[in-house]
């Protein structure tokens, strides 16, 4: 038995140990949710990462030790499972010999992979992990994150509504999922902000991320006469919630749906029902930063699908990483890591600079769905239209 097993096992191992990154290319790796609940995010990120790499390669690659090397990105699917995400990052490091990594999406998946990268001392740049969810894990040494700060996101609708000077009864209902960021925004920040802005919280409820029915909370909010409804949920739930608000005959004057209302599919799925919904965003093709319009245009041209802000942070994360490798001029982890830390550039999402906690904060704008399109309505400086009030 053993006589047969050992050679077979050896052969199997040899099979998938074969090609390792020789020094004639730069290998970077990424584990992304290409299937499962978050597959739509993964698709955007993949495009962003690959575009940045393609740009680097078409520019002739990156010079390392005086020799220009092409960049190869290896992407593995984590099936929206943190265990797989961690396993993928391990493989990328140990088998592909990836010199640096790009992150997955949502705190659970990003953090699982990031912890592996940190342990193996391989630099990683990621987006898609809000400030508190990222910095709360540990003091990072090799992992860098560029995304929004929950505090900014939470306050944006308050500011937008206040500055627009619209009249509401200042009664607010809060519905949020209990994911890490939902918990922070809906569970902590919104109640605090409501107090600060003098609004009265009449309903505050949380639900599991993959919950599908919200009739009780919505009925509660309706019967409490809340004019303002603040929701934090991912897209499938956001769509369900919007429909259930309508079927309950509830008509809040202000409707904010963070996270879920952002991608174009929200509008596609809901049609006219999306109109009036406010959502915070860290990027919009109309942002006054270099290449914003072109990036979105390129996405829509190549995929024939509506885009999302996730193409921007992933594109920028890859850009930052590639620039750092170039700046380091080396494939060593330490030089790349310190070069990432020195990043100071204005890219397609705005100025990117990492703080001591390895976080680069992206500014937030408030956008509103109007006639099937998103329009920036706050801050005034960036606004492309007026706040639609009340929600039709």
């Amino acid at each position, binding site marked *: *038995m053993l006589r047969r097993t050992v050679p077979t096992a050896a052969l199997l191992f040899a099979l*998938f*140990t074969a090609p390792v990154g020789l020094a004639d290319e730069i290998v970077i790796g990424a584990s992304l949710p290409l299937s499962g609940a978050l597959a739509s995010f993964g698709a955007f990120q993949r495009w962003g990462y690959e575009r940045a790499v393609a740009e680097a390669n078409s520019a002739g690659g990156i010079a390392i030790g005086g020799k220009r090397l092409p960049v190869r990105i290896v*992407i593995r699917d984590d099936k929206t499972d*943190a265990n797989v995400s961690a396993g993928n990052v*391990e493989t990328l490091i*140990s088998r592909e010999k990836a010199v640096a990594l790009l992150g997955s999406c949502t705190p659970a998946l990003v*953090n699982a992979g990031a912890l592996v990268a940190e342990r193996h001392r391989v630099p990683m740049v990621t987006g898609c992990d809000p400030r508190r969810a990222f910095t709360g894990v540990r003091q990072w040494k090799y992992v860098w994150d560029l995304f929004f700060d929950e505090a900014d996101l939470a306050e944006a609708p308050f500011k937008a509504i206040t500055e627009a000077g619209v009249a509401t009864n200042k009664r607010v209902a809060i519905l949020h999922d*209990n994911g890490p960021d939902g918990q922070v925004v809906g569970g902590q920040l919104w109640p605090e902000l409501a107090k600060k802005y003098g609004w009265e919280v009449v309903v505050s409820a949380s639900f*599991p991320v993959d919950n599908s029915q919200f009739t009780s909370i919505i009925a509660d909010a309706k019967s409490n006469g809340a004019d303002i409804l603040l929701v934090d949920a991912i897209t499938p739930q956001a769509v369900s919630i919007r429909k259930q608000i309508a079927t309950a005959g509830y008509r809040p004057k202000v409707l904010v749906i963070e996270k879920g209302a952002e991608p174009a599919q929200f509008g596609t799925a809901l049609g006219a029902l999306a109109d009036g919904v406010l959502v915070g965003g860290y990027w919009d093709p109309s942002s006054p930063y270099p290449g914003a319009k072109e990036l979105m245009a390129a996405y829509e041209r190549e995929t024939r699908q509506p885009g999302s802000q996730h193409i921007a942070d992933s594109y920028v994360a890859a850009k930052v990483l590639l620039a750092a490798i170039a700046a380091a001029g080396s494939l060593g982890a330490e030089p790349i890591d310190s070069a990432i830390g020195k990043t100071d550039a204005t890219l397609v999402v705005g100025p990117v600079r990492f703080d001591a906690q390895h976080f680069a904060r992206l500014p937030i704008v408030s956008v509103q769905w109007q006639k099937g399109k998103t329009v920036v309505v706050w801050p005034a400086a960036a606004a492309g239209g007026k706040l639609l009030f009340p929600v039709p």
Partner: protein
Amino acid sequence: MAATFTEHGRATTRRGLLLTAGGLVVALAACAAAPLYFGDYETQILFRFLVGLVLAEAWNLMAGYTGLVSLGTSSAVGLGGYVLIGLLNHSALPLGLVLVVAAVAGAVLAATAAPGLMRLRGLYFTVGTLALAEALRLVMINAERFGGASGLFLDREPPVQSELLWIATGLLAATWLVLLLADGSRLSVLLRAVRDDEDVAAQLGVRSYRVKLAVFAAASALMAAAGGVQALKLGAIEPYGMFGLRWSIDALSMVIIGGLGQRAGPVVGAAVVVISAELLADYPEAHLALTGVLLIVMMRFAPRGLVGLGADIWARRRLMRGVAS
């Protein structure tokens, strides 16, 4: 390993049993020594294989030996993971003891659920375990005390790769010890009697509830310990991953692909599942579909699993040779 067992999973002779035990010790030693001759990558794959194998062996202990087909592996895995991280963060207990506590927690979970679940037979039991696992996941998602949907982080650095591998090897050793007991001791006839016909067994004085409970508890303990080892490696856990249906499906598909009730089934199945998942992950566009197709084809053409298929081919070849000579 398979050679010394009859098809019914029982060592035929004491000598056979000793040989088997010897073979298993050699295999364990080989695993423990792996970091010496394998690189990081192979060691990682071996670790995944070991954790998967422990789950598969434990699942096989339930389904193959006592007929308890469970879709609730994830409940024990998740519990073990949470207990391990919680204890490491909030107590000064040494790691070894923490793993034991995690295993005990798994057994306690089984013992708590048993009065209800064990009343169910066949399909009902399967569906009941699935419901239990989902209920536990939902509780953990909502339980802010245990980190809610965000989960828990390990405060300290996890052990290095080679240490993790040794821990997993130790766990596999414990698993095989349990299985040797189930195979070789007088207990084994009781197990098989309960699997064959529970009512008749009861009429012969077999306290089938206790027998099933013992198996359920032992399997859950092993699964919980495996969950603990997995959590130790991750350093960060959250309910969707730790209590995910994937664990249940993995354990089940490993055993089915390898061969249900076949002694070598879990080993072969775990190897095939872990290696194919790893190979296919390089083709993110196709790997899921391929996994599905592989499963369908396996079910269709190798109903007794790969081990059964191999045995059939082997038997046919011997027959052919016999005819020829």
